[in-house]
């Protein structure tokens, strides 16, 4: 027996499933993160068929909570990756300057006044 609430929740979970698939198809959502949502919408579908609405509400809250936590983990990881990337780009830029300076020192007369020679290491290696 299917009542009105079940029709609404069924429609909702099917719509969610289709939305996720469409986002993956358009490459707006990478597969990695879409699996979480596909599983959630399938679970939603199952719960809305077999259990009373209150269970659905509890399930929904659980899903949203876990999803939010997952995204915090993802954001934290990306923050760490960004920090590493910025560190490495700054190091690379500094090393580039070192290399340029090393190249321009033998003919100091030519390179004088050029930006690269200004940033030559302050003291040569011992």
């Amino acid at each position, binding site marked *: 027996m299917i009542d009105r609430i079940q029709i609404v929740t069924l429609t909702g979970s099917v719509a969610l499933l289709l939305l996720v698939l469409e986002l993956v198809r358009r490459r707006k959502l990478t597969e990695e993160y879409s699996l979480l949502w596909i599983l959630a919408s399938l679970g939603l579908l199952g719960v809305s068929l077999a259990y009373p609405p209150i269970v659905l509400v509890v399930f929904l809250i659980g899903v949203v909570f876990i999803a939010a936590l997952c995204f915090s983990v993802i954001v934290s990881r990306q923050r760490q990756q960004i920090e590493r990337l910025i*560190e490495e780009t*700054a190091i690379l830029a500094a090393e580039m300057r070192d290399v340029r300076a090393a190249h321009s020192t033998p003919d100091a007369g030519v390179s004088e006044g050029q930006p690269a020679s200004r940033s030559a290491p302050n003291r040569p290696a011992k």
Partner: protein
Amino acid sequence: MTRPLAVIPAFNEAASLAAVVADLRASRTDLDILVVDDGSTDGTASLLDRLDVRWMRFPERVGIGTAMRAGLRYGERLGYDVVVRLDGDGQHRAGDVARLLQPIEERRADVVLGSRFTEPARERAGVVGVAQQLLARCLSALVGHPVTDPTSGFWALGPRAVRLLAEHLPTGYPEPEMRLFLSRNALRVVEVPVDAWPRLQGRTSLTPRHLAAAAARVALAMIVVPLRDRVSGARR
């Protein structure tokens, strides 16, 4: 044969940086200097080329811990095995650098922390002072050694510390967390007394709101850092 490098992380220190570098130059001729500009917006960047120091610059402000970590890694790649860290605002005295380096040269410490508060006579005033004292007590209890100045930004690092911290220096609110990290990874830490001038220019980053956030972070670190695995390369 050690090669010491002074690393100065700087955010908007255009007003004081030149004086800090000149002071350091005047008192230590054997010290190379690296300034890490953490995305300054005040002209610190244009100053860097004129100072005749090694420098690197972040395109965005990322945080002092990250700036320091990058500086350590760059220094390590250049072959420096001893690093002194001091602030760009002029509160640390170049004359104290020798005292900081001494335990490392004598090979009895991996990390030397300059403490502004080893003498009890010096009172710390205000909310920040009370918070620092509380933090010092908690850290001392957790670490098992007296920690008198948990937020000091004046350190010297020996070869082992440079190697480990170039990869693992905590970011965010780094000093207290670093202290926990050092003890967790069995690095030998020594405190030496240093003098501190009032900041030449600029403001401290510790407003009450930041202080509360920092306190929460540190409280979490106190619970979590001792529970973490030792990083690879740490002794024992």
